[in-house]
């Protein structure tokens, strides 16, 4: 156990020891042959209010990420990526918030926290620490990694190892899972993948097989495996309907896990997206979740929750739409909206991202939740985020 406790500080120190001198020297991303460094520092201001802005809660988050990769010859590659966050503000006073952030679901405990008299809270995690070996047809990856099997842009039932939380926009990399993965590229088009992972809880044990191929102009995939005491089978596709993109995924779970009362659970999603000649991008998608309920309390802290692939949304039917446009090469704007007929839940997420200078970026984003309660349509709260990002 002592050795386990030393894992996080050892890996973090290694990352810092390589990254800091290179950052201070303002070195290029290639530190030396085969060794590359990337990452970012972000400052996020978060203002949450129910109805009146003057009663708002303010939280600031300083966030640094260091990504190191080392390619040793043609076959071997090592990855080490760390994430450090420093929280200050009202969010720390919410019951359970720091506990939620501090949760480490990995098989190896690769995170640490520090609480400074309730005013500052620090969380550090190594979310990638993997070694891979690759030949022409076969690739083996072991360690903390992201196994991303999703196809769609909002909901991904096929993404069983690292379920993607669309609301957690500030963590696009997602936590890694501790596992092993073998990818075998078939002759012509297609591949076979086998993956297994384990975590701190029994429900984190997963093993699955994925087959990818192409039929006509459609990329297709089929998967099956075991997730805790559930067995599952699923499929996904990505192709075109005329000029529009058409994607879909479904997963069917069978079994009696503690968290699943029904014998079967189905998650299915389909999406269409189209870009108009004038540059406007329009996307519409639908998610069906057979076990979805009506409990809106599950939406609490949606941005910071770890999602289970069996519960991508708390509600049975969910629709999402996105309208986006690159106004000019330095300004992107989008408006995303989610709607569920259950309780008439509506979530609105307008955002704008502006390139300020080489490697500097400013993002303004809001999330507003509304729902019908006792026949009254009322706000469940809004959060406005302002984020500055420096990438290196």
């Amino acid at each position: 156990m002592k050795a386990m406790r030393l894992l996080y500080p050892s890996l973090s120190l290694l990352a810092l020891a390589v990254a800091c001198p290179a950052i201070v020297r303002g070195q290029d991303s290639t530190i030396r042959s085969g060794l590359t460094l990337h990452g970012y520092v972000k400052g996020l201001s978060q203002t949450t209010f129910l109805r009146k802005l003057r009663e708002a809660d303010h939280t600031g988050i300083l966030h640094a990420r260091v990504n190191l990769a080392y390619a040793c010859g043609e076959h071997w590659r090592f990855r080490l990526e760390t994430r450090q966050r420093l929280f200050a503000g009202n969010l720390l006073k919410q019951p359970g918030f720091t506990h939620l952030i501090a949760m480490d679901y990995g098989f190896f405990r690769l995170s640490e926290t520090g609480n400074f008299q309730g005013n500052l809270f620090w969380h550090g995690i190594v979310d990638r620490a993997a070694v891979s070996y690759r030949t022409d047809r076969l690739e083996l990856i072991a360690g903390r990694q992201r196994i991303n099997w999703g196809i769609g842009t909002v909901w991904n039932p096929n993404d069983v190892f690292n379920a993607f939380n669309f609301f957690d926009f500030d963590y696009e990399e997602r936590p890694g899972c501790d596992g092993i993965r073998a990818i075998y590229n078939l002759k012509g088009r297609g591949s076979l993948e086998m993956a297994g992972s384990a975590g701190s809880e029994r429900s984190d044990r997963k093993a699955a097989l994925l087959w990818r191929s192409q039929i006509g102009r459609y990329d297709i995939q089929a998967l099956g495996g075991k997730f805790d005491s559930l067995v599952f089978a699923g499929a996904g596709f990505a192709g075109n309907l005329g000029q529009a993109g058409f994607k879909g995924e479904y997963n069917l779970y069978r079994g009696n896990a503690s968290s699943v009362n029904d014998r079967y659970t189905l998650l299915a999603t389909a999406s269409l997206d189209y870009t108009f000649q004038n540059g406007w991008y329009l996307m519409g998608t639908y998610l069906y979740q057979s076990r979805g309920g009506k409990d809106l309390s599950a939406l609490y802290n949606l941005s910071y929750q770890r999602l289970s692939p069996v519960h991508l949304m708390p509600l049975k039917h969910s629709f999402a739409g996105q309208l986006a446009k690159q106004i000019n090469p330095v300004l992107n704007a989008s408006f995303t909206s989610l709607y569920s007929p259950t309780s008439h839940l509506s979530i609105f997420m307008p955002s704008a991202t502006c390139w300020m200078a080489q490697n500097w970026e400013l993002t303004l984003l809001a999330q507003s939740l509304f729902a019908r309660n006792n026949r009254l349509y009322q706000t469940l709260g809004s959060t406005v985020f302002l984020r500055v990002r420096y990438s290196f």
Partner: protein
Amino acid sequence: MSKTAALLLCCALFSSRFFFANHLPIQDDPIAREIVRKAEDKMRGKTHQADLVIRIVRPNWTREMKARIWSKGKKNAAILITSPAKENGIVYLRRDKEVWNWVPSIERVVKLPPSMMSQSWMGTDFTNDDLVKEASAEDDYTHRLIGEDSLNKRFCYRIEMKPKPGTAIVWGKLLVWIDKEWYLQLRTEFYDEEGQLVNTMTGSGVKLLGGRMLTSVMEMIPAGKPGQKTMLNYESIKFDQEIPDAFFSPENIRNIR
């Protein structure tokens, strides 16, 4: 002549003209075609791998990106963004008529819908289609040598190219200036179907790259937008290196670097 007869005659003349315009063999000047073929072969090779700097120039600011490009024949191409830091590792891959995008931050392959192909590529004056286009200057157009010119003190052939029926090319016609000595494409004007100039692409900075005399700087200048252009500055090119077909597969996209 009665009005009806006149109308019928007009219809007959119009329809015969229309008919013949669409069914007469398309005139393709073999000399012009050969010039275009030489220019295209020179830039493309059997395979090529290039490092380039992309500069987006606007009246009030300039943005710079770096990229590495691979291509094999007319059907396979890949582009890896190497700078700026945030976009580092993004890959665009074309195989036949399909395009995929690798997003390293979320470690996912996204298949691009056809409607996205005519959109600006990463904010530049090139479209997604321009960067990974399959259209062949030799095979997909008819060619006509319409004159000779001097451009930047170099003697050039001036060739008009019109897309062949059935090809998915959005242009009405192209006017191309090709250097007589080195077969370099020094200027191309892109016209829409109404004959309006849309873009002008120029080639300059002639130097030895990958063992061939080539234009090292290309500029895409949109018409009617003063102070706006995108520059491609080739830093190095390697021709005819062995690249396996599997390199250009969606399965390999995350290993392109």
